[in-house]
C-alpha cells in the first residue's frame, strides 16, 4: 500500500522555489531517510506531507489530501518536527493526560512503560528536564501512538551521541514494524544509515537520488585506490574522487561501468560500500557542476 504519493509537487515562497516539481512514492513499511543540504526543501516537503502548508501539484498521504483533510489525517500521522517543541511549562503527567485525552490511538500504558525505562519523573516540568530527556519524553509520547506514518524532522539535533543512539534503537526495536512507515531527516546521516530501508536525496527542491538501501549497497562502490592504479581507475569515470591522507578514494556507480561488477574494481585497491554521506557529497557535487554547465 502506498503511504505517500506526490506528482509535480511545487511550493514557492515569493521568488524562492522550495519544491520544484517533486515526484515521489513511498510504500508502507519503509524507513526513508530524506537527506539534503540546508534550504534544499526537506522541511517544506515534510510540511506539505503533514498538511502544515499549502502547495501546488498532487499529493496524497494515506489516500487523503493533507491540506484539506488534515484534521482527519492527523489521527494516522504523527510527527516530531524539531527537538524541544514540547511546551516548557507542561508537566510530564499533564502531557500524558492531554495526549491520552485528545488522541484516540494513544496507549497510555505503553507511554508509561517507555518512561519507566528513563529517569524522567511524572511530576517534572519539561523546563526542568535536560534536552536529551525532553527528546526521550517526546519519543515516548509518539511511540505510544498507533500511527501509520511517523515523520521525524531532525529529531536528535543537539543531543549527545548516547541519546541519539538510544533514540534510534528504541525507534527500531520498540516501534517500527512492517505496517508502519517512518520518514526521517537528519544531518547525522552516518548514524541513521543502518536504520534506513530507503534513501532519498533532495537538493534545490528536486529529488536527485532515490533508491532502497539494498540498491544503494549493490550499486555504489568506494575504492581506496593504490597510487599505482589511480590513472587506470580514473579512466573508468568515477562519480567522485576525494583525497584522504594522501590516498585517492574513488566512488563508482556500478550502473555506469561496462560490466557493472564490483570485481573489476578489486585490483585497484580496497573495495567497500560507501557511507551515505560520501555518496551525498558525490551526488550533490555532480549536481552543482551540472547546474553550472547548464548556466554556462
Amino acid at each position, binding site marked *: *500500500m502506498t503511504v505517500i504519493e506526490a506528482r509535480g509537487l511545487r511550493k514557492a515562497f515569493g521568488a524562492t522555489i522550495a519544491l520544484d516539481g517533486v515526484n*515521489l*512514492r*513511498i*510504500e*508502507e*513499511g*519503509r524507513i*526513508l531517510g530524506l537527506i539534503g543540504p540546508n534550504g534544499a526543501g526537506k522541511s517544506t516537503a515534510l*510540511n506539505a506531507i*503533514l498538511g*502544515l*502548508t*499549502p502547495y501546488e501539484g498532487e499529493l496524497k498521504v494515506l489516500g487523503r489530501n493533507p491540506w484539506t483533510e*488534515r*484534521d482527519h489525517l*492527523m*489521527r*494516522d500521522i*504523527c*510527527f*516530531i*518536527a*524539531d527537538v*524541544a*517543541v*514540547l*511546551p*516548557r*511549562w*507542561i*508537566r510530564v503527567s*499533564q502531557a500524558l*493526560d*492531554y*495526549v491520552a*485525552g*485528545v*488522541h*484516540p*490511538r494513544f496507549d497510555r500504558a505503553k507511554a508509561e512503560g517507555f518512561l519507566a525505562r528513563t529517569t524522567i519523573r511524572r511530576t517534572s516540568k519539561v523546563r526542568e528536564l535536560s534536552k536529551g530527556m525532553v527528546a526521550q519524553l*517526546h519519543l515516548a509520547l*509518539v511511540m505510544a501512538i*498507533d500511527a*501509520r506514518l511517523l515523520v521525524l524532522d531532525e529529531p536528535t539535533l543537539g543531543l549527545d551521541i548516547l541519546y541519539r543512539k538510544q533514540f534510534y534503537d528504541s525507534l527500531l526495536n520498540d516501534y517500527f*514494524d*512492517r*505496517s508502519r512507515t517512518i520518514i526521517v531527516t537528519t544531518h547525522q546521516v552516518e548514524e541513521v544509515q543502518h536504520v534506513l*530501508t*530507503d534513501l*532519498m536525496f533532495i537538493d534545490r527542491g528536486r*529529488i536527485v537520488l*532515490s533508491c*532502497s538501501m539494498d540498491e544503494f549497497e549493490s550499486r555504489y562502490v568506494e575504492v581506496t585506490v593504490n597510487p599505482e592504479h589511480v590513472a587506470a581507475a580514473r579512466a573508468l569515470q568515477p562519480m567522485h574522487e576525494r583525497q584522504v591522507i594522501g590516498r585517492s578514494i574513488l566512488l563508482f556507480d556500478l550502473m555506469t561501468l561496462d560490466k557493472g561488477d564490483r570485481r573489476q574494481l578489486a585490483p585497484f585497491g580496497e573495495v567497500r560500500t560507501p557511507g551515505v554521506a560520501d555518496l551525498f557529497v558525490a551526488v550533490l557535487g555532480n549536481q552543482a557542476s551540472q547546474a553550472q554547465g547548464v548556466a554556462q
Partner: protein
Amino acid sequence: MNTQSNAVHGSPVDSQAIAPAIMSEAEPFYWSVRRELWENRSIYIAPLAVAGLALFGFSLSSIAGIWEEPLRLNPAQPQAPYDMAAGLMMLTGIVVSVFYCLDALYGERRDRSILFWKSLPVSDLTIVLSKASIPLIVLPLLSFAITFAMQWLMLLVSSAVLLVSGQSVAMLWTNLSFFHMSLLLLYHLLTAHALWPAPVYCWMLLVSGWSRRAPFLWAVLPLVAIAGVENLALHTWHFAALVGGRFIGDAPAVASTGPDMFPTDPMTHIAPAHFLATPGLWIGLAVAAAFLAAAVRLRRYQGPI
C-alpha cells in the same frame, strides 16, 4: 520512488483499519480548556489572590471596628463592602482576560510548541474555541464562584464581629439579600463581562494569532489610531466610547439601574429579554465570530516564529 513493501506478516493493517475509535469533538475541547488552565495558572490564581486580599482587608477593618465608636460595621447599610469586593473581582477578571487573550495564540508560536499541538489530532477550530472560552465562559464563571465564596466568608466574618460586639446579626442577614445579590452578580458577569465585551476579547485573540511580535501594541494601536482619526476629522469620540464601553462591561440594556447603582444592587431589575433584543449585542457577537473565524484560518497557516 519505487519500493516494494516486504511481505506483511499477520497483516496488522486490517486491525488498524478497524481501530479508529470515534472520539467526540467534546473530549479534545475539554482537554484543551484544561490545557489552558495548566499553562495559564493566573486565570485562577489572580482572582483567588485578589479575593484573599480583599477578605483579609475586610476582616482587619471589621475586627478593628469592634473597639471603635461608632461601630464601623453598619448592619443597616451592609451592601457597600460587598459591592467593593465584587467590583475588584470584575476588574481582576478584565485584567486577566486581556493578558490571557494577547498571549493565547502568540505564546505557542513563540515557544515553538505549536508544532507539538499541531502534531495531535485537534483541529484549529477546537483550539481557538477552547482559547476563546477562557475569557468568555471560564473566567466569568470562575470569578462568580470565587466572588461568591469570598462574600460568604465576608458575611461570616461580619456576623462573628457583630456577635462579639453584641449587635444584632439578624439585622445584617435581613438587610443583606445575599443570594439575590449573588444571582445579580452571575447575571451581570455573563452578560456585561462575557457577551458584551466578546468582540474586544476576540479581537485580542486574533491579534495574538497574527502578530509576530508585540501583540499588545498591535491590538491597541489600531484602535487608538481609529479613535484619533475620528477625533481629528469629526471632533467626536464615538469609537473610543464604543470600544471602552464594551471593554469595561458597560452594557446599556442589561438591566435597569440608577446611574450610580452597582450592578448587584437589590433594586436592580434585570432585563434579559431587553438585552437579547439589543442589536448591539448581536452585532458585537457577529463581529466576535468573524474575528474567531479569521483566527482559526490564520492558525492553519501559522508556524513557529
